[in-house]
């Protein structure tokens, strides 16, 4: 018997969904509330920086190059593209992968009611994300072009209209995406490779855009599209960029592109038909496949990797501990992303950051700044990688008891962890140094770094890696947080990660500033002027790093057995 949809059930499910996402204010400690406020402040700062970036980007297009429609088209493409990616992730996560599906199906509600309730949340989420992304572009454009009030009203309507497309596309794409995720979820190496490519791709794109903006800021006379060929390509691209250019035409086509009312009417009609078509398609596809897909998801939730033709194998105690530690990281999407992918992508990230910083620094103060900047950049990225060690004990989670039961001393168990993090950190540092050496230490790279610089940077970074690893593990032994879920993975990074990052970045800044200051005229304190040769600067930094390593190793090893024994899961 076919049951009609009960809107009361839909409303109840929607309320339940909202409540489950909401923090209960009474349960938050003062510290948690403080952290929440900090997160909001941080979010606002990041958003403000984004708006500033958009402002300068807009000026480049709109004021200097007079490419107004092109700007609006590319901005619409960018914002809708990002919105679509976010919406796909959101729909997949909430509609199909959320663990509450099994629970909800036990209630007297049908699949369509669950779908509608969850879709309302997804649509609202998509609406907020799209608006937050689109609004700065449209507002900044209006401010720069001194648009009238009518433009702002139109931009609000277009913004609302443009939020629908990503949501419909996301609903259509979510099911195939789910199938692909299910196929590759146990292909750990493939997943790791994809994550590395994605991180590097996003970072390169980000740094290239940032570099263009900073270049524009540094030299206001530079015209982004000086080359007529490039300019023509951009114009052609924007004019053929359907359906995104139609949104731009609707917004400002009459004034900027000389379009008639008929052209605008047609643009609106096309967009309406596309949205309606996709909306209807998304509705039928989702309602037809949703119930079956979530049932399949529940059935296959526990599908796991199967090792064919596996045999028993004997390893040394050290080898088996190392093997276990590595595979627990490698076989986890979250840990692979946080650690292995970051370690592999670090050389690429260091190269782009260093290229940008060196270019800007060389222009403003000279090439002597490059070794110090390189040191700063490498230590910062190494810190990000090494901070993972500050969850090494917490990640044991529910299985922590096992580390107490096995006939291996705590010192040996922790030394194995230290070895793994040390090796990964060392390889990453070595690759970073080889990359910057090859890129900036050659004739083609402008000989900005000498072999001495690269060698010394490697030694300082290596000592720092080991010191930070000791400190990170020490901090986690001191106060681990066994907050795990699902397959035993940490729910969220604990405070030790923040501590490790803070110490690492602080060290990086001190080292970098020290090297940069002494690479020029030295440090003048009153009448006292301290000058140092590069070798002396490196000597001091190596001495400090070695001292820090010794201190952190002492902190780490003293009473290690007793401190570990005291940990109660």
């Amino acid at each position, binding site marked *: 018997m076919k049951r009609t949809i009960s809107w009361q059930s839909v409303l109840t499910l929607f309320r339940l969904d909202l409540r489950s996402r909401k923090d209960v204010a009474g349960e938050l400690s003062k510290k948690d509330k403080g952290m929440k406020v900090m997160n909001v402040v941080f979010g606002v700062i990041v958003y403000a920086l984004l708006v500033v970036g958009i402002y300068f980007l807009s000026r480049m297009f709109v004021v200097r190059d007079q490419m107004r429609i092109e700007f609006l088209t590319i901005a619409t493409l960018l914002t809708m593209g990002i919105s679509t990616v976010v919406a796909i992730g959101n729909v997949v996560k909430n509609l199909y992968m959320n663990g509450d599906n099994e629970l909800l199906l036990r209630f007297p509600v049908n699949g369509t009611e669950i779908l509608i309730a969850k879709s309302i949340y997804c649509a609202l989420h998509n609406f907020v994300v799209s608006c937050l992304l689109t609004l700065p572009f449209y507002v900044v454009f209006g401010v720069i072009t001194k648009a009238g009030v009518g433009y702002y009203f139109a931009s609000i309507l277009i913004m609302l209209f443009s939020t629908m497309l990503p949501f419909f596309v996301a609903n259509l794409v979510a099911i195939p995406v789910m199938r692909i995720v299910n196929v590759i979820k*146990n292909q750990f190496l493939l997943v790791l490779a994809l994550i590395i490519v994605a991180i590097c791709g996003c970072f390169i794109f980000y740094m290239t855009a940032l570099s263009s903006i900073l270049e524009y800021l540094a030299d206001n006379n530079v015209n982004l599209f000086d080359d007529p060929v490039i300019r023509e390509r951009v114009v052609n691209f924007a004019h053929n960029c359907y359906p995104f250019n139609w949104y731009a035409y609707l917004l400002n086509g009459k004034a900027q592109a000389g379009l008639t009312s008929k052209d605008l009417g047609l643009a609106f009609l096309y967009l309406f038909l596309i949205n309606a078509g996709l909306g209807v398609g998304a509705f039928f596809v989702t309602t037809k496949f949703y119930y079956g897909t979530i049932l399949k998801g529940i059935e296959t939730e*526990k*599908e*796991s*990797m*199967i*090792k*064919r033709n*596996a045999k*028993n*194998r*004997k*390893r*040394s*105690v050290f*080898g*088996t*501990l190392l*093997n*276990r530690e590595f*595979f*627990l990281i490698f*076989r*986890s999407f979250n840990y692979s992303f946080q650690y292995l992918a970051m370690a592999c992508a670090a050389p690429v990230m260091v190269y782009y950051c260093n290229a940008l910083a060196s270019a800007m620094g060389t222009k403003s103060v000279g090439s002597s700044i490059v070794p110090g900047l390189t040191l700063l950049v490498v230590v910062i990225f190494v810190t990000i990688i090494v901070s993972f060690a500050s969850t090494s004990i917490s990640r044991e*989670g*529910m*299985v922590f*008891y*096992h580390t*107490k*039961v*096995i*006939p*291996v*001393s705590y010192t040996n168990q922790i030394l194995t962890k230290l070895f793994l993090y040390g090796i990964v950190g060392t390889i990453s540092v070595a690759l970073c140094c080889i990359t910057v050496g090859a890129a900036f230490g050659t004739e083609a790279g402008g000989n900005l770094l000498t072999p001495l610089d690269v060698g010394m940077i490697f030694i300082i970074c290596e000592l720092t890696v080991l010191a930070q690893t000791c400190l990170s593990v020490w901090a986690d032994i001191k106060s681990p947080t066994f907050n795990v879920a699902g*397959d*035993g993975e940490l729910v969220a990074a604990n405070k030790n990660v923040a501590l490790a990052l803070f110490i690492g970045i602080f060290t990086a800044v001190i080292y970098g500033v020290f090297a940069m200051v002494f690479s020029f005229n030295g440090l003048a304190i009153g009448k006292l002027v301290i000058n140092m040769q590069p070798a002396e600067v490196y000597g001091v930094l190596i001495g400090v790093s070695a001292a820090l390593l010794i201190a952190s190793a002492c902190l780490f090893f003293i009473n290690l057995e007793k401190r570990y*024994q*005291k940990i*109660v*899961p």
Partner: protein
Amino acid sequence: MLKIEHLKKTYPKSDRLAVNDISFELNPGEIFGFLGQNGAGKSTTIKCLTGILPFDGGTIEICGHDIAKDPIAAKMEMGYVPDNHSVYEKLTGREYVNYVADLYKVSLEDRNARLEHYLDLFRLRFAVDRQIKAYSHGMKQKICIIAALIHEPKLWVLDEPMMGLDPQSTAEIIAHMREHCRKGNTVFFSSHNLDLVKKLCDRVAIINDGQLIDMFDLKNNEANKANLEERFFKITGTYEKRLFEDYVAQESADMRPDLPVDEEPAAVTEE
């Protein structure tokens, strides 16, 4: 095999003694049951003797090795099955057992032979090369048991081992406990199941509010077997005549109309 003397344990930020001056000794070849209500101190005692928790007073010796002074040698003689069946879920069953076997330095020949035997015994062969995250509750329990036995420990410690297991697996574990003891080894387990303890154990200890209240033989002692429930209920402070009579009545054939009159329920069947 296991000697606990004047064990005391207080949890941090608590002024209550979770374990208060407990002493007992386990002999080779015996199955020892450890009874008590929830929160009585059973798991705390087990966690102290396995090295999971530090303790404030007393000594624990396993095969003559002091767990506090010589923990590696003491742990080498012991196999432990936890109550929550927590294992490394990202590893496959075989990887996990091999990992444990490596830690206990089990030769390749021995681990091959033992693993083959246990995979058949616990019917886990079909899943041994799958990640443990795909295992059911009972399968996780079984892989924990296999890992605990892979080095043939002299002392096998189990914290509420039958929870969540199907009847056949329970029977297999019981049979294996007996087999393990026949080789001169010792089994120490905590349980809430009085019938199981009555059937299986040579000796039993009852703990209440952190203190060891009673310890007595069950092997060849029908009187003790018969009044185990009564002693348990009295010690744990839950004794009420009516409650006890209800309990006995539930186990009695003539009060169970669902059972044939001539068939005695397993719970009161004497061995």
